[in-house]
């Protein structure tokens, strides 16, 4: 039982981190209807920029601020060079463009900052603490507090601020939002910047766990099942979806993996997501029913 609970909690914490990556997708999907494949590349870019700065002696918060600046500059460039010329095009074209974008970001990041694996220490110890017989890492607890804090901040921003309300208007009805004077390019720049900063937080937490390296950008592939289960346009959905995927993956690896002779975590989340889709096509928190035939 203890082993089961420990596997479950490990999975839930990993899932929270998946959720964090998925939030970046949700933001961009809400504002521009794009499934942004480059989100993983943005996580990689942010983490590598940050770690390069701190390794050269920059203090944590200055490196954080500079990296935020880099992510905002990236967002502005993406809006001007990719999104604006491609507006009103079908979702698949936009998806392909973000695939191309991920090549550009990954290639440029490694071209300028190198391909070495960096260790990242963000000052939180990875020490296991005993909670009623279950060992939980301090790092996991702090990381989840950070994720929860971020979600709360985003929720407040979206419900209370003018920017957040404009964003929801755009998500609801792009044409109507434009006709009352909401400037779409500006919304896109802001949303991609926020997604960039979310990517930075994700990059720091993931990077501290598994080192900063190219494989960070593959997190994108974990986010898709999370989004399908949680719904593409819901931030709480991203978190809940993340928790479900994380827990299911970790349990499946332990309890199903040995039966079939190998780690099943590469594909299990996708099969789970398809099973979910068959039952609930819009995801748990999805707000738009998919048209049925």
């Amino acid at each position, binding site marked *: 039982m203890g082993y089961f609970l420990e596997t479950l909690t490990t999975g839930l914490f990993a899932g929270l981190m998946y959720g964090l990556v998925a939030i970046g997708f949700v933001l961009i999907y809400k504002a521009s209807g794009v*499934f942004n494949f480059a989100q993983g590349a943005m996580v990689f870019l942010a983490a590598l920029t940050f770690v390069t700065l701190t390794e050269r002696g920059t203090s944590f918060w200055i490196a954080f601020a500079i990296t935020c600046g880099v992510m905002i500059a990236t967002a502005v460039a993406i809006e001007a*060079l*990719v999104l604006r*010329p*491609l507006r009103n*095009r079908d*979702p*698949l*074209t936009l*998806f*392909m*463009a973000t*695939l*191309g*974008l*991920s*090549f*550009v970001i*990954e*290639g*440029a990041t*490694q*071209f300028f900052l190198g*391909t070495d694996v960096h260790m990242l220490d963000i000052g939180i110890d990875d020490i296991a603490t005993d909670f009623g017989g279950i060992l939980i890492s301090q790092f996991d607890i702090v990381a989840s507090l950070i994720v929860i804090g971020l979600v709360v901040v985003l929720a407040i921003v979206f419900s209370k601020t003018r920017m957040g309300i404009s964003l929801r208007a755009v998500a609801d009805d792009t044409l109507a939002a434009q006709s009352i004077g909401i400037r779409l390019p500006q919304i896109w720049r802001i949303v991609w910047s926020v997604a960039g900063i979310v990517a930075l937080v994700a990059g720091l937490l993931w990077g501290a766990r598994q080192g900063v390296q190219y494989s960070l950008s593959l997190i994108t*592939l974990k986010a*898709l*099942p999370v989004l*399908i289960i949680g719904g593409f346009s819901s931030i709480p959905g991203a978190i809940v979806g993340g928790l479900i995927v994380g827990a299911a993956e970790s349990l499946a690896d332990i309890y199903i993996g040995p039966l*079939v*002779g*190998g780690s*099943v975590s*590469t*594909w299990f989340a*996708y*099969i789970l*997501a*398809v099973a979910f*889709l*068959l039952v609930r*096509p819009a995801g748990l928190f999805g707000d738009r029913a*998919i*048209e*049925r*035939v």
Partner: protein
Amino acid sequence: MSVSNNVLAEAAAISSKSNLRILAVIAGLLVLFVAVPLGASDYWLSSIIIPTLVMGLAGISLNLLMGYAGLVSLGSAAFMSIGAFSAYNLILRAPFLPLPVVLLVSGLVAAAAGVVFGLPALRIKGFYLGASTLGAQFFFEWVFSNFTWFSNDSQSLTISAPRLAFLGWDLQSPAGRYLLAISVTTALIGLAFLIVKSRLGREWMAIRDMDTAASVIGIRIARRKLQAYAISSFFLGVTGVLWGFAYLGTSDAHTFNLDKSFQVLFIVLIGGTATIFGNFLGAAFIVLTPILLDRIVLAANLSFLGDQGALTNLQRVIFGVIIILILIKEPDGLAALIRRATTAIGKWKRGAT
């Protein structure tokens, strides 16, 4: 009398026109089957022409599904791997089967898998299908690298090209492998044309354009969608055999990874959706761009920029930029570009005479 003369003259004109077309096709086939293998060097055959042909065929496979039936797939490479591993095992375990039968059966195995992973398309639509097809992608990569039976328990999990032969002809040389690839490609292009022009193809397009209307006029949508997955996967399976054995020689599960699936997707979008020949333009782009970038870097002596790794990353950037540029500038793909160019030339010629 004069009327029948007119009719005869017209008939003669028509038949001379269709004669011309038949002649053009025969000339084209002669070039492809005789001139190319005789004239092209081994390097051109093995490194440029064969991969372009095979990737073009992969593009056609996905285009049948995406361009004509309007269904999404992000896991094309999975079905290619099923084809390759099936062919390997068929030749290994049933050596008496002739090559065409092996190709056919491998395609059918891939088609069966395509139907299974296409089943969710009956309930879900659009981009969400990406989940099921990505599931196929990761699932089969896992199957072929975890279960060693499929690679005959080889230590490296690789499968090597069996001796390719047909009716006593040895097809191991570059020209032989080219002839194998071009024969299969020609046959499958013919099949693709028949399918697209048939009732099935028209019903796919009706479903793609408006599925509700299609179901109202009595098109059996579920069956048609599954057929689209089956046929597309059949094509991909055969393509996978060619990629594994006629082009690479050896391959393993990771030869057919997500990158390969994305390449096939790029070919469709770059070449143009719902075209057959556009796929070869897209494939040529995918095959030639890295080679050209390499050459440019060598010629311009840009190696001061860094080591090989840095150059690979630079190529990644340039490739990404080119893809975005094509998506922005040429929404209908290179096929539309060529079409416009030929119309323009036609107009210019008519204006000149």
